[in-house]
């Protein structure tokens, strides 16, 4: 397989994953905004910007930080590389270049989401965003289904690899920002918590019900953190993403007969995560731990690019 083809497939996986994550983030933020009293609602949008790593980009636009402006920036802005629109542009452009490495279903799911978004009015508000997000979630499910039905070859593996790398990054950033905001330093763990805010986190990673099933307990911040960090049965947890990256890399290694730095780093991370306990993580500082994870994740991303000669 051409290195460029592999890179396109990897980035399709990343972009689709990020588009869906951003969509869920907006959905959860709209929900939070509606539930909470002012000014908590406004800070909901502010933290959404932080989670999407779009804070400085938004500031650069010079726009006022209103829910409408932030929502539009996250949804439709062409200037925001993480907006749903930019992600879908990216996914489609990559997909077009490797059209024949994808199945028709996979291509059509991407193309339809892209067409939907193009038809959207720039002045649209939360009502329209919600419609868009619903449609997008359906299309990404369709895409995931189509990918699931693909031949288990390198094409499939590179899409899943990209998605897994992106998923880990998104979950880590979500938890980092929200936890930091909700439990400022010095605040007692286990103190009075903002239930709505915590529900928002679970909504973003579609884990509200999963939490109940696993813990049968009311929302407790450290349990939410544990769920998203170390629980392998939770598909968007860091443990599950790290495991997926190792799996896909090993699969590619079996086909090409070669393994390298990316494999080594990914396995190392998986081992670290398996040994980590949530108590230790908190003891060392959650923020520091998550920052370390995000840095390691981009190191693995670079190692993948180098190992398969993406650029």
């Amino acid at each position, binding site marked *: *397989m*051409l*290195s*460029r083809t*592999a890179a396109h497939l990897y980035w399709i996986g990343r972009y689709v994953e990020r588009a869906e994550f951003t969509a869920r983030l907006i959905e959860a933020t709209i929900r939070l905004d509606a539930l909470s009293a002012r000014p908590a609602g406004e800070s909901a949008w502010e933290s959404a910007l932080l989670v999407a790593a779009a804070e400085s980009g938004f500031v650069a636009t010079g726009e006022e930080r209103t829910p409408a402006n932030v929502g539009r920036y996250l949804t439709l802005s062409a200037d925001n590389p993480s907006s749903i629109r930019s992600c879908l542009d990216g996914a489609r*452009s990559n997909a*077009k*270049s490797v*059209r*024949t490495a994808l199945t028709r279903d996979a291509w059509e799911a991407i193309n339809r989401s892209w067409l939907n978004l193009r038809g959207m009015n720039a002045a649209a508000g939360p009502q329209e965003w919600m419609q868009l997000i619903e449609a997008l979630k359906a299309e990404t499910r369709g895409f995931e289904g189509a990918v699931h039905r693909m031949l288990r070859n*390198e094409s499939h593996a590179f899409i899943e690899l990209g998605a897994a790398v992106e998923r880990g990054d998104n979950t880590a950033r979500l938890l980092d920002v929200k936890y930091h905001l909700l439990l400022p330093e010095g605040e007692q763990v286990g103190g009075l918590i903002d239930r709505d805010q915590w529900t928002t986190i679970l909504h973003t990673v579609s884990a509200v019900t999963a939490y109940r099933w696993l813990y049968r307990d009311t929302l407790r911040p450290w349990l939410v953190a544990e769920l998203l960090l170390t629980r392998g049965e939770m598909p968007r947890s860091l443990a599950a993403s790290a495991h997926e990256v190792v799996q896909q890399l090993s699969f*590619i290694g079996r086909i*090409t*007969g*070669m393994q390298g730095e990316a494999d080594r780093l990914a396995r190392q991370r998986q081992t670290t995560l398996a040994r980590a306990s949530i108590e230790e993580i908190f003891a060392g500082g959650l923020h520091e731990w998550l920052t370390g994870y995000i840095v390691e994740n981009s190191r693995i991303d670079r190692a993948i690019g180098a190992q*398969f*000669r993406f650029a």
Partner: protein
Amino acid sequence: MADIIAFDEVWGKPHDPAGRPELTDLAGWIADTPASELQRRQQAAEAAFRQLGITFAVYGEEEAAERIIPFDIVPRIFTAPEWRQLSEGLVQRVEAINAFLTDVYGPQRILKEGIVPAELILANPQFRGFLHGTVPPHGIFAHICGIDLVRTGPTDFFVLEDNARTPSGVSYMLENREAMLRLCPELFQRYPVCPVDRYPDSLRETMQSVAPRRGDMPVCVLLTPGHFNSAFYEHSFLADSMGIELVEAADLEVDDDVVWMRTIEGRVRVDVIYRRIDDDYIDPIAFRPDSLLGVPGLIAAYMAGNVALVNAPGTGIADDKAIYSYMPEIVRFYSGDEAKLPNVETYRCREPQALQYTLDNLEKLVVKLVDGSGGYGMLVGPTATKAQVAEFRAALVAEPHRYIAQPTLALSTVPTLTEAGVAPRHVDFRPFCLTGTHGVTIVPGGLTRVALREGSLVVNSSQGGGTKDSLILADAPMTQSMSGMTQSMGAGLTQAMVGMVQSLGEPR
């Protein structure tokens, strides 16, 4: 254009709704199939093309960035004797083109003997002087030629233009046929039609045959400028149907005059490159330094004999419109015979007498830029506005050497589905000729382009032209075996489907 009465390939001249004797079946089919049914099938075909993404881009039209070329459901038919006449002429012409290229990049006999003026070649930007003396692998320059033909009567065919650089459109030949087989199967029962689907195999064999390295499996790739290119669909379609990699410049690197492609398993040596990038952009070291589409060092690798480029660089000198007018002499010089496919009479405006004639008769002539393509830079005198004529007059006086002029031909028409029912529309035809070490191969078929506007003679897709399937009829013996195959296939398929329907229905 109402004053030009053209030969219609189905209804003849004078117009006879019963059809020319050879094609009464087709005329009957056109008459018997209601326009609404034809419309329905045509829409089904176009919907399929859109879903497949068989699109092209029109430069300068942002909104229409992805359009499909209109497809016309009424096919065009060439009888077996007509095709024989054409293919003999095509083989002769393509052999002459390769002989000419070998000569001008070699001994230059044709210049020394004064058949073609030396300065016309040597001062032509399409002549790549630094390649003089370079012999491409196996001595073949133009592996793929698209020869544009027009017709004015039952046996009157002319070459309108040679395309020896990177002719496009072959994917339409293949996709149009797929659509016709699905939507109008009854036509293929009435007529024994030669299949076109071996084109990708023939092309791959042609490419493999010119590999410089002798080995069991030469590595062939198709080099595309990328998915923003108007013909990207064709590039990916061809690569896919040949089973070769579709590469972009960034996938290739040249190391010590050897070309490699980067794969996830390491680099793989490349032997043959079907490049769909023009000379100017293919190597920033040899040609335009600002090209981002090119592969640095590719031309050096070619000159070192380590890679075959399909087509070789420098072939533009053979299809230049200024050279075109010399093609009858060129064919005679190398083949020793008269050209079996004549040229359209051409006035070289670089010659004072021809220029004067052109200026005096602008309203009757077609004037073309020698380096124009795609229907741009072209004046069709009889249909042009006064302003357009005046504009070309000024341009001709200023730079006569950049133009040629030709009489406006009464291009043949083929019945075509229009809003007002089936009506004659002008067409041209581009067959694709492959040249490998085994000689010239022409898959029986080609791209028929049709000017959809009434009276229009410009068939280019960028100017609102459409395409048709071009059916080449097989000789009589083939008829039997073909129809036998159709029957047995048809029966087997029907039974299997009935069986499936039954077993599915059982539980009820």
